[in-house]
């Protein structure tokens, strides 16, 4: 037993202090350094800072911001209220559409976001699903059925906190049974002078989990003549005896109508909107499939190393996602 005691103490780097209750004000700082498959050295950097204020057991404030050399933006700034089994958010938050939160996207072995979740992938013209909205969100349900409903401004700028025009409704219904979960998502924006014509998107996602294994996937489709559709399926596996190692395999496909993000790279944080950063070549249609193998190694509780290899279709949407890429992530809590 002594040996295992030592293993437990040595291999698990515990937090600095014991706590029965968490400090009311706490936060997290993350730094991402990545290599582009087509270049040498570190090309991508991202810093993420989040502050949480637990004002009471049922009320908290969340604020987070992300920085890159070229682009900074507010991530989420909201007040969260828990009431019975319901949760309400007020402010700026990640759009409640599918696997949307920071944890789902950034804490995986994959360096690049799924193409359909790239910042530059427009499911309908000028609208991606990787987005921060402003408004009100309600989340609740119980047992096998959970819901999310939001009325928001889906055209928030990078530094806006409060909505200007709540013209968009987003809904999610999630059903779970045993190890399986399936979700349905809908997005509808009304036509108006400020943010343009009406838009609709739909999505379906699933997740299956078992000890050591997780499989998840999403399919998203933009409704209308200029809609883009795409999917990804991820497999995560933690080998026996390697508690700090995670293996991943991803297959993803996209059928894009227009505006490929030709300038985007493999990095989650550089998959920028092509309409903002310019893309000269605008083919009217492109489709392809990409395969990615990944390894995530928790070096310590503060440092994680990801290694990816991508292969598949050579279309604008997969630029920077083929070949080898490496990312070092650091995480510090306070």
């Amino acid at each position, binding site marked *: 037993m002594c040996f295992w005691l030592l293993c437990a103490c040595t291999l698990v780097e515990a937090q600095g202090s014991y706590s029965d209750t968490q400090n009311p004000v706490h936060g997290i700082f993350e730094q991402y350094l990545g290599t582009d498959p087509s270049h040498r050295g570190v090309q991508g950097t991202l810093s993420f800072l989040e502050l949480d204020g637990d004002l009471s057991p049922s009320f908290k404030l969340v604020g987070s911001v992300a920085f890159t050399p070229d682009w900074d933006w507010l991530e989420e700034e909201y007040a969260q209220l828990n009431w019975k089994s319901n949760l309400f958010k007020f402010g700026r938050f990640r759009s409640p559409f599918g696997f949307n939160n920071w944890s789902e996207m950034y804490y995986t072995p994959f360096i690049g976001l799924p193409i359909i979740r790239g910042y530059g992938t427009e499911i309908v013209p000028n609208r991606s699903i990787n987005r921060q909205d402003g408004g009100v969100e309600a989340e609740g349900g119980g047992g096998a059925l959970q819901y999310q409903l939001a009325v928001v401004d889906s055209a928030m700028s990078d530094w806006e906190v409060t909505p200007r025009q709540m013209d968009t409704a987003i809904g999610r219904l999630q059903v779970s049974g045993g190890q399986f979960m399936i979700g349905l998502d809908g997005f509808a924006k009304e036509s108006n002078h400020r943010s343009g014509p009406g838009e609709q998107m739909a999505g379906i996602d699933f997740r299956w989990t078992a000890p050591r294994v997780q499989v998840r996937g999403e399919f998203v489709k933009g409704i209308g003549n200029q809609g883009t559709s795409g999917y990804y399926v991820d497999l995560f596996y933690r080998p026996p005896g390697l508690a700090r190692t995670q293996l991943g395999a991803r297959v993803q496909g996209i059928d894009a109508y227009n505006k490929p993000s030709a300038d985007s790279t493999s990095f989650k944080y550089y998959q920028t909107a092509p309409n903002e950063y310019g893309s000269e070549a605008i083919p009217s249609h492109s489709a392809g499939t990409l395969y990615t193998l990944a390894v995530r190694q928790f070096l310590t509780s503060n440092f994680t190393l990801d290694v990816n290899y991508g292969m598949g279709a050579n279309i604008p949407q997969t630029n920077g996602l083929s070949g080898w890429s490496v990312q070092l992530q650091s*995480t510090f809590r306070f």
Partner: protein
Amino acid sequence: MKSILVLVLAASASASFAADVHGKIVLSQGRAASHAVVYLEGGPKSRPLANAMVDQRGRTFIPHISVITIGTTVSFPNNDTIFHNVFAEYSKEDRFDIGMYARGATKRHTFSKPGVVAVMCSVHPDMSAYIVVIDTPYYTVADSNGEYAIKNVPAGSYTLKVWHESGQVESKRIEVADNRSVDVKTHHT
């Protein structure tokens, strides 16, 4: 190997042959062994606890260190808005993985063997907790100053054991009867 010094003060406190065992645990560097787990073996066996919980809130396991008795079922509610996973790999006594689950869901695991179980989340590498599984009703977790007290211990011979998350442990035979103090020097295993 570094060692820590455990100072044990045993005080007789009642006429019904029950005493409070208290003292202070000090690391070899001189600082207090905060939140060390202290327990007494050699007395009656324990019963499973009726309620035990390790919460997941704010991307933290709360509490960071728990002590439970053999047979206790621990619930792991997810009170974050993100998915979490709970697994233990570095324990010879108990290895488990209860999968990923969403906000509002609770999963449970029963700990049937004594030992120290390091609990982790496969999504968030900075999350960790320890669950110390023992087979005695007499235990406590020292405070941030390394001070502890185990109350209402029947008179008799016991083995006092100490576990600290730095990896240092110690055990020493003690007699619980009258006022007394015991010095224990612990070491890395």
